[in-house]
């Protein structure tokens, strides 16, 4: 399987994602500079974390106009797998591939910590190696992860089961107390209607190796690999 990691000038988790795909998952991976205009030959795209353009004005707002973005949108429309992590999620929102917007964390502070997520579905290309209702542990690091959408959109996300991850306690209880940023309905990750585009604030690439204290994140990348293998065989 061949992954492409889209690199914006202020991306800073690009190398981390590249490392996981290449050294841990053992798959092919390239960097794709944001000034490119095509994404041919890739089976999945990663929009990594960082501060795409310093995240001045609004996170992801400027990145959305990068030359590569029309190709990314086209890739999504063709059903290609895309995972947007942290800043990647913010860019997907600004680009309209996912609904809603990001506000500053409720605490108004950047937060770097380990949180727990409840896995809402295990029948998606991103979560097939996880279990529904399972609690996983994963790092977050962001200043603007307070996901917001209007009531109608939220109802739609819920109805269409597009919320894949919510913040919860270590034992799986969902409550604002365990929500690091104040996001609506404790949302940590959502997909588009077709289910091929995932945006999530937590960083699976930061918990894909034992040395970093956990491997729950690895299972997300491995799920993508398995889904692709199934489709392509």
């Amino acid at each position: 399987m061949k992954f492409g990691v889209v690199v914006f000038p202020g991306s800073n988790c690009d190398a981390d994602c590249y490392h996981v795909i290449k050294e841990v998952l053992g798959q092919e991976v390239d960097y794709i500079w944001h000034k490119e205009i095509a994404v041919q030959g890739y089976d999945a795209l990663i929009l990594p974390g960082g501060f795409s353009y310093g995240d001045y004005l609004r996170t992801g707002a400027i990145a959305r106009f990068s030359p590569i973005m029309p190709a990314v949108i086209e890739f999504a429309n063709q059903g290609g797998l895309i995972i947007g992590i942290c800043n990647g999620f913010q860019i997907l929102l600004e680009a309209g591939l996912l609904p809603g917007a990001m506000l500053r964390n409720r605490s108004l502070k950047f937060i770097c910590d380990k949180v727990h997520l409840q896995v809402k579905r295990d029948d998606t290309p991103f979560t097939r190696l996880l279990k529904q209702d399972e609690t996983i542990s994963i790092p977050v690091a962001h200043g603007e992860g307070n996901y917001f959408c209007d009531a109608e959109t939220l109802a739609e996300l819920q109805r269409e089961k597009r919320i894949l991850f919510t913040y919860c306690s270590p034992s799986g209880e969902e409550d604002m107390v365990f929500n690091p940023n104040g996001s609506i309905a404790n949302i940590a990750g959502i997909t588009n209607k077709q289910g091929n585009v995932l945006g999530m604030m937590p960083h699976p690439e930061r918990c894909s190796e034992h040395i970093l204290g956990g491997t729950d994140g690895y299972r997300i990348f491995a799920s993508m690999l398995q889904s692709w293998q199934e489709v392509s065989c």
Partner: protein
Amino acid sequence: MKELTYREMGLTEEEYGKIKIIMGREPNYLEIGIFSVMWSEHCGYKNSRPLLKTFPTEGPQVIQGPGENAGVVDIGDGQAVVFKIESHNHPSAIEPYQGAATGVGGIVRDIFTMGARPIANLNSLRFGDPGDARVRELLSGVVAGIGDYGNCLGIPTVGGEVYFNQAYQGNPLVNAMCVGLVQTDEIALAVASEVGSTIMIVGAKTGRDGIHGATFASEELSEKSKEKRPSVQVGDPFMEKLLIEACLELIKEDLVAGMQDLGAAGLTSSIAETVSKRGRGVDVDVLKVPRRETNMSAYEVMLSESQERMLIVPRPGTEGRIKEIFDKWGLDAVTIGTVTEGGAFRVMEGNEVMGEVPVMELTEGCPVYVRVAEEPDYYQRCKSYDLAAILDANPQEALEKLLASPNIASKKWIFSQYDYQVMTNTALIPGDGDAAVLRIKGTRKGIALVTDCNSRFVYLDPYRGGMLAVCEAALNLACVGAKPLALTNCLNFGNPEKPNIYWQMKNSIAGMSEAARYLETPVVSGNVSLYNETAQGAIYPTPVVGMVGLLKDIDRRCDMAFKDAGDLIILLGRFRDELGGSEYLSVCHGLETGEVPEVNLEEEKRLIELLQILIQEQLLQSCHDISEGGMMVAAVESAIKGNIGCGVRINTDDGRVDGVLFSEAPGRVVASLKRSNMDRLVQVVIENGVEMRVIGAVGGDSLLCDNNGKEIIRIPVLEASRIWGGAIDCFMK
């Protein structure tokens, strides 16, 4: 901009006289400005140079000692670490967010200037009483500034320290350290040797930011500082990120002969430093410098401290390629001058010569002052303070107070605002061990990083305090399993023209030197920040040590959390009960006095070596050095981290109870191990000549302490964790 007199620029009458002699005439305004910034303490080290010369700076591991932008230390396999610590105290006192942010920006530039990729940041902070609203504002601003800048760059901030003490009320300290990784054959230096070489400025445009910042950093803070304040420097981390990537690309392609960041005193000092190394001169045309503001004078361009700029001396004929690379990153890269023969620093505006000074006089010619040192009255008084007259506090209450002291309490409120995991190398995150540990991808190695300085000790006894800062740093590295390699330091003191302050400087540097020499951790870089005073007086002398260690096998690292019920808890090192200068005295008795515990370097060294062996042999479950709060607090922190209880036993014939529990005497650690490893451990400990004693066991859900079999402390772990974990949050709400 209003014209300043030479005095307002910080020059003395004698210095001005000396300049006239050098020039053979009255210098013009621009020339006075150039001399004044170059001869400031910040650039010229005129008060500290003789003392700095006494540091040990050599060792087989040292590739580059002091004198370049940062020190370089060999870590094997053709790799090296590059590191340095630097202060941004004065700017942070005025504008905490931008002051701290630009402090990080500056130190990061020092690292990639050497051709290294920055891989970690640390910081060492000192504030006044957190009960004070202005202090909280400073703390919030500084932490947010450090965080936002480093986070945006994608460099993890993996460690540091924060202390609160009245001594820093009006004059906080903000010291930032950066560590980079480089292939030894790609190290870049700041030299321009070829006559005819061009000089390029790259990165941000120049504005009127921070003119005279270097001078300003070399004066006491007063009400006037606010007025005199130059236009505050604002950091642009996104620009810096682009600059890092572009500059490292230049080095990979071997396009540069020399590279130098623009820091204090801007273009003036970076050009002077680059060309003076080989006795060259330079012609620079200020009209070519890209500007952000209109109508800037030559003086303003030369002295501006606008951030995120670098000076590059290209290899012959590579300007075009350099421009291409910068263009890709959307950055300016402009040729502004040429290296000349003869040693004149000539500032041009087009064809007009605006000023001309001899380069060597700016650097080598900077006056050097050996000040008078005089022992302050307080020294003997504190040293001979009779602690025997102080009554033992109730141990349980004392422990609770200590856990709630912001100097001991969890620093999570701070480090959770820093992205400490980006780059996915952080194998020991803040709070988990005595030092941060990073893996070096592609190898089995790890590096350990720490900053340390107990300034109360340094104040009470600069010589011992200086030794202790080095020893504690080295011991912290050993506690995670690393071999200490070398150190960087940031010397924060008051006004050196005052004999008592100079005495503090002189003695603490002597103490640091002796310890560094004995422990074979030479000084490879550093920075000096003097005049940290307000009307209320000087800060505590604060020579912060940043140290780097190496782990051969990162899988064998050690954290501080107790692990399993039944594990034994041991004290490695001597049982000691000296309370001088302890947090206990301060928190429970309102005293900052007493004799600073004696330091035995031989003991320290043996313990440091022993720990590396024990951890290498995987004999320990946890390890934590004894520092603020003493033995009992060390045990409690390990228990809280492990979320498991413990029982500690002491006997009164060991000394006074509060002393045994809360002494901060050095050279000691609290460790835990599996019972089954005891025999082997004892053997190794004896072989290495270290004293050891079993002091308790891990287990249960409370923290217990018995004295002669009688319970003197019982606190549920959850309760202790709540007190320790919430203390700083409580202030900051």
